[in-house]
């Protein structure tokens, strides 16, 4: 089980790996599309890698609700609980 801070750090690492964005730019209030300029294909790659890293399942229909990094952290934390 990871706390929110650990999930954020893990997500930042995945985003960096996929897009080259600096991990510190991945903040809770950032929008994946508007702030981080992540396209849908990269988003799906990030989702799949996050599932593997955190041992959770993020259903495809849930992905469109993950607008900000914070949304993703909250969802992963909830799914782990």
């Amino acid at each position: 089980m990871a706390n929110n801070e650990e999930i954020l750090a893990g997500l930042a690492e995945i985003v960096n790996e996929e897009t080259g964005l600096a991990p510190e730019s991945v903040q809770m209030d950032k929008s994946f599309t508007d702030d981080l300029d992540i396209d849908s294909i990269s988003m799906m790659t990030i989702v799949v890698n996050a599932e593997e890293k955190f041992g959770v399942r993020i259903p495809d229909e849930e992905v469109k609700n993950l607008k900000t990094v914070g949304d993703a952290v909250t969802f992963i934390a909830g799914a782990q609980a």
Partner: protein
Amino acid sequence: MPRKVVITGLGATTPIGGDVPTMWANALKGVSGAHTIEADWVQKYELPVTFAAQVSTPATEVLTRVEAKRMDPSTQFAVVASREAWRDSGIEEVDPDRLAVAFATGIGGVWTLLDAWDTLREKGPRRVLPMTVPMLMPNGPAAAVSLDIGARAGAHTPVSACASGTEALHQGLELIRSGKADVVMCGGAEAAIHPMPMAAFASMQALSRRNDDPEHASRPYDLNRDGFVMGEGAGALVLEAEEHALARGARIYGELAGTSVTADAYHITAPDPGGLGATRALKAALFDARALPSDVVHINAHATSTPVGDKPEYIALKEALGSHIGNVAVSATKSQTGHLLGASGAVEAVMTVMAVYDRSAPMTINLENQDPEIPLDVVTSERKLPGGDIVALSNSFGFGGHNAVVVIRNV
């Protein structure tokens, strides 16, 4: 008269050099790019052939990590070579609607395809990454190059096995002559040194088995040739309408004077023993270039080093050029680079352009006992090409009976 098309930029990443200056210096010197493969999969799958000609500079050393991650190796090679060609051309501004791409591959994203298949079997469908499709598609290299240089007049992918790279130049020439584009980034890329294609080419007895001596395995025209050596990489050429190049004061390497493509319709893999399709291609290319056989001073032959392939090409050359073939300096550069399949025509076209520009023919290595049935004047030591107006040819033939020829003329 059709529009005159010239070559203003060259790029390459190959087993004998990661850029054109390095490759060309080595090609004139005569080096082998073939070595034992160090990857563990050679032992794991007990491959009958344990060597290949891998690129001398890995693409991951040139591209950023994120760029490389989103491209199949074939696309990585295409982008590396085309960026060099683009820089080399010195083009600063071009109308995107007049800029096209014709970038070939023989096989496409085979690494991506088979990695994804492994992932599916080992981890299930969820783990098959969403970038898989754009990475495995054969038009991946052309599409990536089009994105990279902002080419909007079409991005084409000729696929004709080992003739693909040469066919890309044929297509590029047509695009400019027909007025559909003023500048075309042409080339070919291949990255198939993967255990499955290695096993498949070995299974059809196409590959040399000289596992204990890779550097001497690719030996076109030698009596002891026993197959080709798998190569990888890419070649890229910037074609430009002459008036467009002159208007911007470009450095011009030479003219792409003519091309042709024919099909044998004889056998799916075996070359027509009489070389009829290749002969027609040679004659048509010379006609297209308004050149005479006697104008030809140099040929970069297809010459893969297979027992059955090298001779029909000689028969075709003799038929198309007549007795003049005895006066032509013939180079078999696959002796150095191995066989880059769909990229070979592009890399060899780069070498042929350099030969005309530099007035020097590249070396053929490993020719110890020349096959008496192929009495060509093979370049095995330093060789200057004559001054004045000259023409050089580059041939490519592919499984499926594809024949493609390009004609380069000095400017």
